[in-house]
């Protein structure tokens, strides 16, 4: 399904629509861009209909775990006060301002216009439901025309959201295009890229590398790649921190960029690492049991895996692995490398004395995202600054590693700043 000019079209219409798109975009760009106020009030209205239950059927149909939290989060993110706060945080006091520079005496001031990049192509990933619509909303609020290439795994939620938004504010129709082009149709994606001033790409390294190959060298690339996160525990770890960490690991299943892949302990002593596992494993397993999968296929998968593990251990003549069940496990390693765990409740535990933080984390500098930090109060600032210098972009409590924190940057950047440009106009003498 394609969304263009506020209407749905069959996917087969893609080439026809793309052929007329350049002319259509030129017409749109000839008009003033929608103001943040126009977009914000439409999004705010949409948020209220979500709150009133207009999308409950669709949200239920997704069968998400924690659908209610998901809805609550969406309602919060769509509110006027939140959007205004985001704009203020990312773009400055009055969003999208027209202002004059104030140079030292004797130099002429310049007029500065904050303006949209123009046309943004969003190449969205399918790793979070509704994320493609969120990406488009960021493009809209900065006044851009948005072309969205849906991920293959899209379940229709993004299209529904964007259509609803156009219902709230029909003037946005010229600023939203959605294509369900498969990633294999490079020719079509390249045509969209050629029409765009910026390409926002979400996804793994393959997706990012592919975009870099076909994009014009002058096109601005805004890349939201996949990341790795970890927990750093120093000093005595309170019981509550263990419970928070277990809940984070089990509820995110370690599938998010911000999910803990490695638990680092501030020690070089492997005995201390194993001691930690003895203490943490029961907490983790308890949490895993509480959140046990309910679907038949998932239960069956666990039963089969458990049976296979049991027979394999039997053939090896060994006891079952320590800190291990089909639901979750702790995997102790003596090296320090930050790496992906097997996920789904199976987390790596490694030693990392704080003196080695920089050298170890720099090895993965392209991937660093969140560090969940738990330490003594007197060490907090020192460890925080050390993690910052190593390249970590987000430092949180263990509990909030994957929480959406109001006003936070995205992988070290304010996205809205990437979607605008600063235009200088030299004032003419009267």
């Amino acid at each position, binding site marked *: 399904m394609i969304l263009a000019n506020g209407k749905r079209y069959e996917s087969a219409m893609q080439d026809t629509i793309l052929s007329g798109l350049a002319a259509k975009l030129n017409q749109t760009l000839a008009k003033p861009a929608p103001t943040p106020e126009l977009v914000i009030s439409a999004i705010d209205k949409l948020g209220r209909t979500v709150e009133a239950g207009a999308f409950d059927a669709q949200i239920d149909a997704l069968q998400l775990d924690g659908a209610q939290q998901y809805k609550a989060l969406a309602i919060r993110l769509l509110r006027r006060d939140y959007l205004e706060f985001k704009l203020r945080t990312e773009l400055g006091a009055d969003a999208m301002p027209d202002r004059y520079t104030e140079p030292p005496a004797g130099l002429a001031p310049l007029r500065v216009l904050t303006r949209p990049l123009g046309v943004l192509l969003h190449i969205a990933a399918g790793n979070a439901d509704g994320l493609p619509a969120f990406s488009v909303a960021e493009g809209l609020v900065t006044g851009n025309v948005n072309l969205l290439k849906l991920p293959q795994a899209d379940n229709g939620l993004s299209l529904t959201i964007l259509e609803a938004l156009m219902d709230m504010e029909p003037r946005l129709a010229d600023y939203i295009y959605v294509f369900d082009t498969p990633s294999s149709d490079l020719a079509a994606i390249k045509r969209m890229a050629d029409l765009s001033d910026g390409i926002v790409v979400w996804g793994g*390294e393959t997706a990012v590398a592919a975009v870099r190959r076909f994009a014009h060298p002058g096109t601005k690339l805004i890349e939201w790649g996949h*990341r790795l996160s970890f927990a750093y525990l120093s000093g005595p770890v309170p019981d509550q921190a263990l419970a928070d960490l277990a809940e984070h690991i089990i509820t995110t299943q370690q599938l998010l960029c911000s999910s803990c892949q490695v638990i680092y302990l501030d020690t070089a002593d492997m005995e201390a690492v194993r001691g930690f596992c003895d203490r943490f494993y029961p907490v983790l397993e308890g949490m895993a049991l509480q959140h046990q999968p309910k679907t038949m*296929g*998932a239960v069956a998968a666990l039963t089969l895996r458990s*049976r296979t593990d049991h027979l394999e251990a039997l053939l090896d003549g060994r006891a079952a692995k320590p800190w291990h069940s089909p639901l979750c496990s702790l995997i102790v390693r003596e090296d320090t490398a930050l790496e992906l765990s097997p*996920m*789904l409740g199976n987390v790596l535990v490694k030693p990392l004395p704080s003196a080695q933080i920089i050298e170890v984390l720099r090895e993965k500098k392209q991937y660093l995202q969140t560090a969940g930090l738990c330490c003594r109060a007197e060490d907090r600032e020192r460890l925080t600054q050390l993690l910052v210098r190593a390249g970590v972009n987000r430092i949180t409590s263990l509990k909030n590693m994957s929480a959406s924190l109001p006003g936070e940057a995205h992988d070290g950047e304010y996205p809205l700043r990437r979607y605008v440009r600063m235009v200088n106009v030299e004032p003419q003498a009267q």
Partner: protein
Amino acid sequence: MKDRSKLFSQADPYDAAKTEALFVSAVRENCSYAYKHCPEYKTILDAEGFSPQRLQRIEDLAELPVLPTALFKRRRLLSMPRRRLPVVVTSSGTSGHASQIGFAVSDLWAGLMMVLRVCKTRRLLSARPCHYVVFGYQPNRKNRTGASKTAFGVTLFTPALSRTYALRWDKGSYVLDLKAVQQAIVTHSRSRFPLRFMGFPSYAWFLMKQMDAQGVYVKLPKGSKLMLGGGWKQFYTEEVDKPVFYALAKKVLGLEEADIIEFYGAVEHPILYCDCAYHHFHVPIYSRVLIRDVQTLKPVPHETPGLVNLISPMVFATPLLSVMPDDLGVLHDGCPCGLSSPYLEILGRVGLQDIKTCAAGAAELLEQTEVSL
């Protein structure tokens, strides 16, 4: 191996009631053999407190320790020295680890008997020569997958006038040559002799779509058949609706629904399941299927979905007596075709579907490994 020979030379491959006692004694015979000759199998049976002599009645089959097929991917389990085995088949391993399953000469002989009986029942054996189009791999010494062997084997049912392969071995690699296949179809449609297709359903579907798009329609000679198979994967609820598939076969090739026959089997359970006129896969006398509760692994009644436990005494070289693939399935009774044995429907694979992730490298990892939660 006496009881197995008796079981595999029965005339009616679907008279389960009559062969019940024989089936149990054939499993007991095979189980005793594996217990004696496969040390790993003995370890498992001893640990679970199961003795082959426990197998006396049909109900006792449920007590036989179940080996997940995943175990064969992690460990090589054989009851005979590998050098004595004429065939060692590797399953097409999507998980990176391929299982290795060995077959003895007598195992293959039993398999041949089974194939002949099943195909005779479905009237697939004929002295009338045929042309063959194989939607699969041209046989080659380097290709050890079970699928290529089956596809070639089926071309032996009747004298073959010609064989055309969709995947041709060319200068050291396989190339998909659907053009040659289409040409062969058009040529053979004018022949006096029937044409038989064998192989993966997806290729057949692709080819028919291509012919339809190009407006190439033929009426194949009487007795022509489309035989589809390729492994458990195709057992699943398919992307293409079967009625749509049949309608296209009628339109493009002039084949009736009854001329379309489907086969299924798996390396870890090499029993030939052939569909009936209603396209149901009845359990033949060479195997029994138990559906087990997904949590407790206790057997559940027919019409209740669960994990699929496949039991057969066919293979002596590898302890494949009671295996469990990563599938969810259900047994049904009362097929209008008249066969009294129940039929198996595979509902899908175990595990969480559609795992979404944004952790770096995770997508690639999940694609490589089969994630079971």
